[in-house]
Every structure is written in structure tokens, then in C-alpha cells.
């Protein structure tokens, strides 16, 4: 049973410098390792480091190999240090293994640009002894074969690929099916069939030579001819397969190109949109400039403001004085009027007509004179026209001072500033987008690319039909050979020859291998269906489903309790089906081993996440979960606590660019 022990990274992807270490839990019951990390911090890089340690190469999500330059930490590269290293310790089948891989730039290269500028070294130790490259490859094929690694080192985001198994002609589905058959052990039998076929040809050729001058030389000659015909068909198949591979590569390129063109098309649309926005902003700025110009034409008022304020103050004082004079004059005139009344009415009270014995005529005259003097002292007789004039001036001053030119200008200036900032930003966005765009894409280009792709796909279908035709021709030849072999075997000249025995036994072995492949496939499908259904019933929350049904591609459909297929509408359900399949394949096809899952819970709700965490540790020797914050919660972690062997966190280093691995207590 394989178990990871320790992983050390140095300058690998975002893990700058050394000291990045993970110790894997080896306890049978506390076999979960949790690695927490935000998106983009390096969880997928961690998964890739394991893959790179085991196989010496790693691909991106488009299945393209990642170059050494991209595996090297960028900060390290900027500093001129072009060396990165991954060391993986693990145990399997009672032995301890250590794989050390490092890549550094060649001595003569100061600025490496591609893989040829680098040197890749690796040491594979088994129980302390260094193995040769061939031995190392063989050991890895026995312990953790790369073709089946997708089932134990998997990226949760790629679970969608399993949905392609439900489509009959899907290219992705074919690749997944091939991987499934590899984990299920089909290659043991299919290689056996091919190897015994190769050996059969060799011994038939030898037999043909031995029987040249015998009675059965004609039969032997016919077999030789049939073998030659088979070789021609086989070559044709190989050539056709090469053509299919080339066509598929071209389709991949076209798909990438279409993707690029579509991206460019989106960018072009964005540029058009931004150009519209720029036009609008420019037009707004122009309008605002006009308004500002208009506002500026009466801005002379602002220059007069200090003077006007002074005049306003003086004018107000004048008005107050005039009002006071009006009041005083009014009062004095009223007094004179009263005194005059007293004179006229013989010093009787004007109102009650009562005589006032204390006031004589002289006193009245004196008083009137004093008041008149006071009126004379005031000197001016308030002129209503002057007052009216001053008041009118005051109104003008007020209107000048209270005008909103200042506020208008200020708000226009602010608005123009805002718009100008927006304009600069939009223009800068446009420049950036234009540099991303390069040559502008056209709809025609996309249509052309789709047409090319369609043509290639059609040619692949035709080529596959050709392969089937070639294969049937080979089967016909083989049947004929078998009949002829029986004749030779019975002949006196050949029956006791050792070569005939080789031919006969190899032919028998070839039949056994060939016939056992179909038997194995049928049995595996039944078993995978049963185990996936078991897993599904444990993983799915709702108990309204009866199980899963497998198709020829190992695609799985959910069945309801009436046994009818349920269309999968939820992406969560699809993910659970995919996980059930992986679990079933893992339990059917390989000994218990570690399972590493990067972002495993993406499309699942809390209930199903918990179910998976309850279930999966039972089916793996170690379960490594690389999760982001949104995938776990305290309740879930509490439930898992008794099974968690260790926890790590991927954090950013102080530079906020590179990552580091921190052990959590």
C-alpha cells in the first residue's frame, strides 16, 4: 500500500526559496491531510509538484506540458537563480522511496528561454539504493502508474470531463475511457494479446523457413503471405492512427485559435464600447466647457465682489441713518403739531378739551422753538427720492453679490475634472485592450476556423472507419492462418518440431488473451456499476434514487426508484456521480493508495461535502484535500477532526507575490 511521507519544494512555481515542506499523515485512522489556501495561492501548484516528482513532467488544464520556465519560481528567475527542486518521500510494498528532481539552467546559458536551455536531473532511491532510469520507471509503473494518476491525483475542476463519458463520440470521453480501462487492468490483457501476436509472427516466420522443402511448404508459404498482408494492414492502421493524431492536434490548435479569436472578438467589442463611452465623455466635456465659457462671461461680477461688499455695507449704514432721521423728524414734527394744537385750542387738551393750568403760551412757544431748532440741527429734511435711489442701488448690489456664478463655475470645474479623469482612464483602457487585441479578429475568421475543424472531424470519422476495415481484414487473415496452422500441426513434418509447439502455444495464448478482454470489460462494467451505485447511495443526500447505470464508455446515469434514467440537471449531482465513478474505479482497479484532491467540493453544498468527507477516507490510504475557504466550514472541520492527521495553510510571503506552506496546530 502506497503512502506519501514527505514533500519538499524549492523555487517550485509560487513557492519561492526553500523550506516548503509537507509531512503526510501515516496513521491509519487519522489519514486526512488538509491544505487550506485561497485561490491563486498555490494549491494546484502543490498538486503539480507531486505529479512532477513522480513523473518528471506536468500538464496544464488544456493538457499542454508546462515548461521548466513556468515551473520555476518567477522571483527566483528574476534574481538569476534558475534552479528548482522537488523531493518526494513515500513508502510502498514494504520499501521506502525517495525521488529527488531538480532542474537548473545549463552552465553555458545565462538567460534560459526554453526547456533545451535547462538540465533536468533526478535520483530515484529505493531503500537507499539509487535505481537506473529504467528501473525507476518500472517501479513507478508498478506503484503509481501515470496513466491512472488522474484517479488519485486529481483536480476537482476537471471532474466535468467525466460527463463526456455519456456522449458517444466525445474525444474527451474517449481519453477518459482509455484511462479508465488502464486503471482497471485491461492493458495487461490487450498488451498480452499484442505481445503474443508479435511472438507468433516471429515463430511462424521461423517455422516457414524450417518447412521450406517439405510437403507443407505451400501451406507455410500461404501463412507467410497472410502474415505479410497482416503487416500491410497493421502499417496502414499505424499510419491512419498517426493521421488521426495529427488531425486531432490540428483540431486542438484550431480550437485554441477559435478561442483566441473569440477572445479577440470580445476585446474588439469592448474597444467599440469604450470608444462609444469616450465619445460620450468628450461630448460631455465639450458641453461643460461651453457652459463654463458662458459662466465665465459674467464672472467679472466676482472681481467686483470685495468692492460691492464695501458699498453694500456703506449703503446699509446710509439706509439705517436715513431711517433713523425719518423716525426722529417724524417724532419732532409730531411734538410741534401737539404744541400748535394747544395754542389753537386755548391751552386745552385737544382730546378731552380740558384746560391745562400749568402751561402758558410762552412756554409753548419756547418749546416749539426748541423743537424747531432741533429740526434745523438735523439739518436735512429726509428726501424720499434719495432714499429710494439708495434702496434701489442696494437691490442691485444684492443681486450682484447673490448671483451663483461662483457656485456654477466651481461645480462645472469639478464636473470637467471628473469627466477628464474618466476620459484618461477609458483612453488608457483602450490602449491596453488594443495591445491585447493585436490584429483585429473577424467573424469570417471564426467561421473559417470552424469549417476547418468540421472538415478535420469528418476526416477523423472516415479514418476511424478505415481502421475498423483494416482490423476486420486482419481478423479474416488471422482466421485463415489458424486453419492453415491446424493443417501444419497435423502434418508429419511439423508436428514434433519445437517451433510448431511455440507457434501452437502462442496461438492458444493469443486466443486466451483476446477472448478474456471482452469478458473482463463486461465484468468490470458490472462491478464498476455496482460499486459506483454503492458509493452514490452513500454520497447523495436524497434517498429517492435507485442507483447508477453504466454505458459502454463507463459513463453513469442516475436511476430513479422505478429504474428509469433521471436527466442530470444539477452540476452538484454530476460531481457526485463523477466522484462515485472515481471511487468505484479506485476500488476496482488499484490497491488502496493515497488520493489527492485539489478543490474537490467546488459544486457541492454543505450536506454533500460532509458526506464525501465521511466516506472517502475509508477508501484511501491517505486523503489529501486542498481546499479554499469557501469549501469548508467550522462545523465540517469539527466533524472531521478525529480523522485529520495534519493541516497546512498556504499563505503569501511578505512580498505578497510568493507563497509559503505553514503547518497549522
Amino acid at each position: 500500500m502506497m503512502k506519501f511521507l514527505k514533500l519538499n519544494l524549492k523555487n517550485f512555481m509560487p513557492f519561492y526559496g526553500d523550506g516548503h515542506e509537507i509531512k503526510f499523515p501515516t496513521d491509519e485512522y487519522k489519514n486526512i491531510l488538509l491544505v487550506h489556501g485561497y485561490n491563486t495561492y498555490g494549491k494546484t501548484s502543490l498538486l503539480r509538484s507531486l505529479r512532477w516528482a513522480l513523473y518528471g513532467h506536468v500538464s496544464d488544464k488544456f493538457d499542454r506540458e508546462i515548461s521548466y520556465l513556468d515551473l520555476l519560481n518567477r522571483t527566483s528567475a528574476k534574481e538569476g537563480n534558475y534552479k528548482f527542486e522537488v523531493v518526494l518521500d513515500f513508502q510502498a510494498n514494504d520499501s521506502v522511496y525517495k525521488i529527488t528532481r531538480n532542474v537548473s539552467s545549463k552552465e553555458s546559458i545565462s538567460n534560459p528561454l526554453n526547456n533545451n536551455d535547462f538540465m533536468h536531473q533526478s535520483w530515484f532511491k529505493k531503500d537507499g539504493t539509487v535505481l537506473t532510469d529504467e528501473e525507476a520507471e518500472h517501479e513507478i509503473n508498478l506503484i503509481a502508474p501515470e496513466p491512472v494518476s488522474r484517479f488519485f491525483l486529481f483536480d476537482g475542476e476537471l471532474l466535468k470531463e467525466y460527463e463526456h463519458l455519456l456522449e458517444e463520440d466525445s474525444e474527451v470521453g474517449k481519453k477518459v475511457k482509455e484511462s479508465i480501462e488502464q486503471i482497471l487492468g485491461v492493458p495487461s490483457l490487450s498488451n498480452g494479446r499484442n505481445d503474443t501476436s508479435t511472438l507468433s509472427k516471429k515463430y511462424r516466420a521461423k517455422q516457414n523457413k524450417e518447412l521450406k522443402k517439405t510437403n507443407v511448404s505451400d501451406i507455410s508459404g500461404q501463412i507467410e503471405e497472410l502474415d505479410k498482408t497482416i503487416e500491410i494492414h497493421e502499417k496502414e492502421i499505424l499510419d491512419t492512427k498517426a493521421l488521426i493524431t495529427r488531425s486531432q492536434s490540428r483540431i486542438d490548435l484550431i480550437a485554441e485559435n477559435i478561442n483566441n479569436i473569440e477572445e479577440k472578438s470580445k476585446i474588439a467589442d469592448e474597444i467599440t464600447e469604450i470608444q462609444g463611452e469616450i465619445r460620450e465623455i468628450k461630448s460631455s466635456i465639450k458641453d461643460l466647457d461651453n457652459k463654463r465659457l458662458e459662466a465665465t462671461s459674467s464672472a467679472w461680477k466676482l472681481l467686483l465682489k470685495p468692492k460691492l461688499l464695501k458699498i453694500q455695507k456703506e449703503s446699509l449704514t446710509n439706509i439705517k441713518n436715513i431711517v433713523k432721521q425719518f423716525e426722529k423728524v417724524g417724532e419732532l414734527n409730531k411734538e410741534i403739531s401737539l404744541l400748535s394744537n394747544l395754542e389753537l385750542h386755548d391751552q386745552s387738551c385737544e382730546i378731552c378739551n380740558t384746560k391745562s393750568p400749568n402751561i402758558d403760551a410762552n412756554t409753548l412757544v419756547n418749546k416749539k422753538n426748541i423743537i424747531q431748532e432741533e429740526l434745523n440741527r438735523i439739518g436735512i429734511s429726509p428726501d424720499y427720492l434719495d432714499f429710494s435711489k439708495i434702496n434701489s442701488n442696494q437691490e442691485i448690489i444684492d443681486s450682484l453679490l447673490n448671483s451663483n456664478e461662483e457656485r456654477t463655475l466651481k461645480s462645472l470645474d469639478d464636473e470637467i475634472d471628473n469627466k477628464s479623469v474618466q476620459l484618461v482612464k477609458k483612453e488608457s483602457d483602450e490602449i491596453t485592450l488594443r495591445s491585447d487585441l493585436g490584429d483585429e479578429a473577424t467573424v469570417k475568421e471564426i467561421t473559417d476556423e470552424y469549417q476547418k475543424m468540421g472538415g478535420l472531424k469528418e476526416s477523423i470519422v472516415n479514418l476511424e472507419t478505415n481502421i475498423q476495415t483494416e482490423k476486420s481484414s486482419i481478423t479474416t487473415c488471422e482466421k485463415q492462418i489458424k486453419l492453415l496452422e491446424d493443417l501444419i500441426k497435423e502434418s508429419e513434418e511439423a508436428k514434433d518440431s519445437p517451433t510448431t509447439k511455440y507457434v501452437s502455444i502462442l496461438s492458444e495464448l493469443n486466443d486466451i488473451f483476446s477472448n478474456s478482454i471482452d469478458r473482463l470489460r463486461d465484468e468490470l462494467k458490472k462491478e464498476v456499476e455496482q460499486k459506483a451505485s454503492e458509493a452514490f447511495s452513500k454520497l447523495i443526500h436524497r434517498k429517492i434514487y435507485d442507483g447508477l447505470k453504466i454505458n459502454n464508455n463507463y459513463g453513469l446515469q442516475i436511476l430513479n426508484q422505478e429504474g428509469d434514467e433521471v436527466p442530470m440537471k444539477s452540476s452538484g449531482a454530476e460531481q457526485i456521480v463523477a466522484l462515485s465513478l472515481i471511487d468505484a474505479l479506485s476500488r476496482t482497479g488499484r490497491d488502496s493508495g493515497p488520493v489527492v484532491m485539489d478543490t474537490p467540493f467546488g459544486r457541492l453544498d454543505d450536506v454533500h461535502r460532509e458526506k464525501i468527507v465521511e466516506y472517502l477516507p475509508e477508501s484511501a490510504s491517505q486523503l489529501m484535500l486542498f481546499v479554499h475557504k469557501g469549501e469548508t466550514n467550522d462545523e465540517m472541520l469539527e466533524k472531521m477532526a478525529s480523522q485529520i492527521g495534519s493541516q497546512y495553510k498556504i499563505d503569501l510571503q511578505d512580498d505578497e507575490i510568493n507563497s509559503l506552506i505553514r503547518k497549522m496546530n
Partner: protein
Amino acid sequence: MKNREDKALEAFIQTAQESSSEIPENVLLEIYQIEKNYQYSDESDRGVAIREIEKVLDKYIGSL
């Protein structure tokens, strides 16, 4: 968790039994084991497996 049963081997042996093969089971097992060990070798690198099968056959036919 216990190791899986070898379904491919089961299918291989059952097919041999049904075809009334005269090849002894131990020879079949040896050949199957070679194929199992080299099941993930590249198509272009089958030489080692083929040589090992030949050795098993040499021994078996030599013993007849």
C-alpha cells in the same frame, strides 16, 4: 482496506479454462504476471516483456 481482487487475471484464467487450454496454470500465471508488470510500458517498449514471455515459453517447451 484490503487489496483488490485481480479481475483481469480472473478473466484470463477463466477464459483459458473454458477453452480447455492445455497450457498449465502456472505458465499462464507467469505470463500474465509479466504482462501485468509491464502493462504501462509504452507500445514502442514491449521488448522486455516479450523477451520475458519467451523465457517462460522456452522453459515450458523445454520441459515437454
